């Protein structure tokens, strides 16, 4: 795995500068059902294809960003600050 991620702040950087933060999953509202909470806490979609995910630029600007990546090809389609897209 040696693809590049475009950090919105630092530009194209090696994936080794980042920490993977998992797929973006909306957190249930405080009063949500037990099933929703269990699903959020324990289950992962594990997509084979395009998914939106969290990355932390550990060896760079130390900010969390989101990336849209194809998990089959490691093609990164888009990266952006989390502000630009509701959590």
């Amino acid at each position, binding site marked *: 795995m040696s693809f590049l991620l475009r950090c919105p702040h630092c530009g194209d950087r090696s994936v080794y500068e980042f920490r993977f933060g998992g797929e973006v999953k909306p957190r249930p509202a405080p009063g949500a059902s037990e099933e929703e909470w269990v699903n959020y806490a324990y289950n992962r979609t594990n997509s084979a294809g395009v998914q939106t995910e969290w990355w932390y630029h550990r060896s760079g600007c130390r900010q969390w960003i989101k990336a849209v990546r194809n998990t089959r090809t490691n093609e990164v389609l888009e990266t952006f600050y989390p*502000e630009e897209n509701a959590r």
Partner: protein
Amino acid sequence: MSRFFFDGEPIEAQPGDTVASALYRAGRRIFTRSFKYHRPRGLLCLSGHCPNCMMNVDGVPNVRACVTPAREGMRVRHQNAWPSLEQDWLSAAQHFDSLMPVGWYYKTLTHPSAWHVAEPWIRKVAGLGDPPPPDAPPREYEHAFLQAEVAVVGGGPSGIAAAFEAASGGAQVILIDDQPEPGGHLRYTRPGEAPASIAQLRGQPNVELLARAYCFGLYEGGLLGVLQADPHPGAHERLVHLRAKRVVVATGAYEVPLLFENNDLPGILLSGGARRLLFLHRIVPGRRCVIVGIGARAEDLASDLRGAGIEIVSLISPDEVLGAVGSTRVEGLRFRGGSVTCDLIVVCGPLLPDAGLLSQAGARLAWSAAHGAFLPADLPPHVTAVGRVTGSGLEPAVPLPPGEVRAGKRHFVCLCSDVTSQDLVDGISEGFEHIETLKRYTTATMGPCQGRMCQLPAIGICARETGRTMGETGTTTARPPSPSVTLGALAGPRHHPVRRTPMHYQHEALGAVWLDMGAWKRPRYYRTAESSEERRCVQGEYQAVRERAGMIDVSTLGKLEVRGRDAGRLLDKVYTNRFSDLRPGRVRYCVICDDAGIMLDDGTISSIADDHYFLTTTTGNLEFVEQWLEWWLAGTGWDVHITNLTGGLAAVNLAGPQARDVLAGLTGLDVSAKAFPYMACRQALVADIPAILLRIGFVGETGWEIHVPAESGEDLWKALLEAGKAFGIRAFGVEAQRLLRLEKQHVIVGVDTDALTSPYEADMAWVVKLEKNDFIGKAALSRAAGDPREQLVGFVMQEDGVPDDGSAVVMDGRPAGRVTSSRFSPREGRAIGLAWVPAGLAGEGAEIRVRVQGRPLLARVTRRPFYDPEGARLRM
């Protein structure tokens, strides 16, 4: 002129010599013994491809002598032969070849006991080379990170032209060439006719040439793995991580041997090998020569060899050849209709595109009957191929194997592991018809040459025996690294990062015995003039804290500053208890859980002002906590700023009944229990150093955690030691701290808790404020609050013995829980500890059994701290 040693004998080397050329000039013809049969092998390709010249150079095994420059004082040793290359007793193996058919491990060693008898012997004779002994002087390797707009792999005529073209267009170019000089095959096919572009290229400021470097992997994102030999006298090898926007592969073609009987005898050279000896090293390789080949290439070779004074006895077409004659070196050649005597056979082998790199990168390899080779197709984006690697400029195919398949026991397809054409035919007849299964069964293409020499003949035999075309048979899969890379180069420089606290050298002067915690060095305990025995030293430190005063360096704690209008809001959300109502000047213990309700970390939060908090985390979890806070902040738009102060602050925990007297002498601050109560924080000067003081008590005594700028850490330490002298203060280490906190049943997250622990199970329900609106973990904790299945409890051993951390708690002879921490408590006079037990055994006074050295010893549960259960001493 330089001199090196081969098996202890001095060898003279001319300028430009490799180890192999100098040995050949000195008369050596046998360079290695083969892997399985220990047959003598001599120089063949002289280009670093074949396995025939691998030696031990300065302790490193399997070094290819033909591409290793000879250097003064080098120590070269033969390998895989005993006692010498000329007389190798293990060569007897070739007389027992019928006992070692293809796949013989699987066929003959089927009985379990047979393998046990055979294994030690096989281990002794199998394998290639010896690893350097543990006491060998270490070698230096380094890593470099380079970037280029265009990376060109291969410094032959096509690579030079491509580099020149890209550079002329203004691009930043890196040219990678595995030879000492660029020029590729022109250096030995047309010596003296170096293209003018080489000189031009050197004049280009935007071209960097990496000589004696090869690309072993072409990875996604335009990453090239490049290994450069001898980058400078201080490093043995350099691994270059090269990022390029465009990659031009100009790896050219390489020559492979032909199949005939005894085709592996010393004295049989590939045409490229003979040319390299002649034109690069000025060595005349023999006197009476037979050339096997056809067409202009063979004619040119004959004329060049004649020019060097070699007698060309005969020029024979490959399909006429029957076999070479000789036992340890070539004495003649048999062909259809006759034989000749000679001391040299030069084979014009097929030239194959060196497309392994392209194949690794995802290109398809398509069979071209016109070229007699697999050619790269469907290249990945940003990768192009130029020159002979594409098949251009290669002569029409020599069928391989020529004529019908010659299944012979001395027709060597794979030189690396002694696989003959007979072995392949046998393997196919046993059902291994697919090229990939045939490869795994026979090990052809799996040796050090990584299939370069043998892949095409193996595919050819497989195709003919199974009645398929070459294209249908296909190739085996190319994977990086190819060519191979030393483990040292991958590991890189021998750097072990160490973090030292600002007081490190004070600890050293006090006789610290070190404990590694991650990258940090922390004093485990301090040796004293009376004793260096751990138990006695720890006991002395323990007593100082309980009876007088002690101090411990806690600079390794994670320290974060959280500021901004919404700081309290963020802390309320992330931590399980409430912080927005924490008044300035107060400290609160804090726990982080995730949304599954699992405890992730603990620490303290001090309120400095309404919009300013000071957090401490455990030593190992700082990075996690910082990222966790940032993550929950990301995208919220809240006004919060998190700054990591860990490296900027030093910290000392001063504790003990007389800690107040020690501190009072160093500060103008009123440190009385009334003015500075338990769980309060203040900012003040201590020993004239600006400090943040937290009145907390991990060890269970009146105490302060004093944070000062790192540059003043040593001054603070010395001032405290000096002021404490009159009170009998002692520095204490991590081991005494662990014992002190255990008597208070203070847990260490990650030691006493694990990846499934909720605060309820850790007996810390008081840190969870379920009445808060929302926080991370609330949903899970609301449901978990009821009845934990397991409970973390304290215990006191009722019999002699100190359980190891991790010992089992047993019930009816079965494991029912485990001890997380246990120490001998001087106060109790017996061992105490913390353990996980089933909820049913968690009641005060319950009897449990703990396994100590195999015996289940009685212990009694207690959920009250062993020491000062009311916490009165903390508040004094």
